[in-house]
């Protein structure tokens, strides 16, 4: 590795050293209590899949360049020079970690391995060694935002085609629709709620039906919620993708920004948008609120199979939305079974951190590392596996195929839309 590149990478490293990060890097006592916490290790017991080992890959570089110990006596802490070899190790560590933060619950100090892996991801970007695909997706996403004016036309056209399908789920009487109102309103200034969806029909149609049923004054965002910048760990792109939604919300003067079923999008929006004049909520929260306030009524007789719910890590353990999905499922009349007695110990689906978006490339690892997840689901004997995250949904569907599981993976929001009583 050239000296110049190395210096740049060390600067990147330094840019990540916030107070908590510095403490995370200084503290680990390598006690190994976190070892059984990681689904990758639990499914494939190899040292490289333990949280502390992963973190140590980054920590060794930290010791080498930022700590006196590593400078005086590098052997003591096994400090490591940053070179091609180390980059490979960083890649392996970072892209076998889904950032679920289950290990953080185990650690006596609460060390956040996801944060430490974000250094690894940034270094990989700096060295041009990150997964190309994720950068491509992040770039496309950024570019879509920049070219929004040119694309508005085709975006609206695409939406028009979905309207019938929305109406199929929830008929809007002509009288109910005020002038200019459509089944999928967009760009409405003064709406109460801005819904940020994914660029796909499954994320828009059911949500629209429920909003309309609840009589919500809502408007659909031009932008997609998912933040590929966060997956690849690029702070600049993460911020770009986040900021344009924030700007749109402020331009339309909405009171609430509701994020679709996407874990990363929700956590980034909720925790990184700073203090804003609007609230950030997950679509599950919003649905629970509608039911509680009697704004929508659900048919309780539709679900006659046992149901379980997978808490998406970024929404539950890391985002705090835990009671709402349980309430919704209860209101759907579900024969509900918990995956894990305490939701903060739920196993990760194994698809986070950009692994699902990387598709076939990671398929083998995703399936092997999700063994414990598959077992956990099967133990409940549930036939319907609900979840509230696109990533988890894709991964869980892959798992159920791979392990021949007899479950149907469903979006919670679709289940609500399907049970609407006119």
């Amino acid at each position, binding site marked *: 590795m050239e000296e110049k590149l190395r210096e740049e990478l060390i600067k990147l490293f330094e840019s990540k050293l916030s107070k908590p990060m510095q403490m995370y890097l200084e503290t680990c006592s390598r006690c190994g209590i976190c070892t059984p916490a990681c689904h990758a290790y639990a499914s494939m017991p190899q040292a490289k899949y333990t949280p502390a080992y992963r973190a140590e890959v980054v920590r060794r570089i930290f010791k080498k360049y930022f700590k006196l110990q590593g400078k005086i006596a590098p052997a003591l802490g096994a400090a490591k020079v940053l070179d091609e070899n180390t980059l490979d190790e960083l890649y392996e560590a970072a892209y076998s970690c889904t950032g679920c933060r289950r290990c953080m619950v185990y650690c006596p100090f609460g060390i956040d391995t996801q944060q430490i892996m974000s250094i690894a991801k940034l270094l990989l970007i700096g060295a041009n060694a990150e997964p190309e*695909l994720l950068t*491509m*997706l992040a*770039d*496309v*996403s*950024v*570019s*879509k935002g920049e*070219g929004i004016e*040119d*694309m508005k036309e*085709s*975006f609206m*056209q*695409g*939406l028009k*085609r*979905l309207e019938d399908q929305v109406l199929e789920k929830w008929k809007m009487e002509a009288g109910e629709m005020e002038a200019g109102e459509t089944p999928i309103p967009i760009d409405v200034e003064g709406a109460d709620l801005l819904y940020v969806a*994914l*660029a*796909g*029909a*499954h994320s828009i149609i059911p949500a629209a039906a429920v909003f309309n049923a609840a009589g919500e004054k809502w408007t659909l965002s031009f932008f*997609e919620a*998912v933040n590929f910048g966060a997956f690849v760990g690029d702070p600049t792109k993460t911020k770009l993708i986040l900021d344009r939604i924030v700007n749109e919300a402020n331009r339309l003067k909405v009171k609430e920004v509701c994020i679709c079923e996407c874990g990363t999008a929700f956590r980034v929006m909720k925790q990184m948008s700073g203090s804003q004049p609007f609230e950030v909520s997950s679509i599950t929260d919003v649905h629970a609120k509608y039911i509680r306030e009697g704004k929508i009524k659900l048919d309780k007789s539709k679900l006659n199979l046992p149901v379980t719910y997978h808490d998406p890590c970024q929404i539950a353990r890391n985002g705090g939305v835990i009671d709402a999905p349980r309430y919704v499922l209860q209101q759907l009349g579900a024969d509900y079974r918990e995956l894990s007695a305490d939701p903060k110990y739920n196993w990760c689906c194994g698809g986070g951190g950009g692994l699902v*978006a990387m*598709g076939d490339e990671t398929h083998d690892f995703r399936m092997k590392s999700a063994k414990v997840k598959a077992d956990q689901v099967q133990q409940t004997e549930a036939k319907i596996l609900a979840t509230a995250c*696109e990533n988890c949904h*894709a991964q869980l569907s892959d798992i159920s195929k791979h392990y021949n599981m007899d479950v149907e993976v469903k979006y919670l929001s679709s289940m609500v839309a399907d049970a609407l009583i006119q």
Partner: protein
Amino acid sequence: MSDEINVDKVMDLKGMPCPMPIVKVSKGIKDVEVGQVIQAISTDPGSLTDFPAWARTSGNEILKTEQTEEEFVFYIKRTA
């Protein structure tokens, strides 16, 4: 479907949710030579914005977009 455009590879992306269509196409385009054309068919409305954005960042060119009742058809020329 198209008289004037000579298609070298057809990619069926029907039923795939976003962003899988552009993921597949970004891989698939490496299988054709510069100057050749891919016809990509998707059903997800998100593709309408995804494809132009992808083309711009990757430096490829979308020759034409067609919409039928159910499908979106993109003609993409590899230029990079």
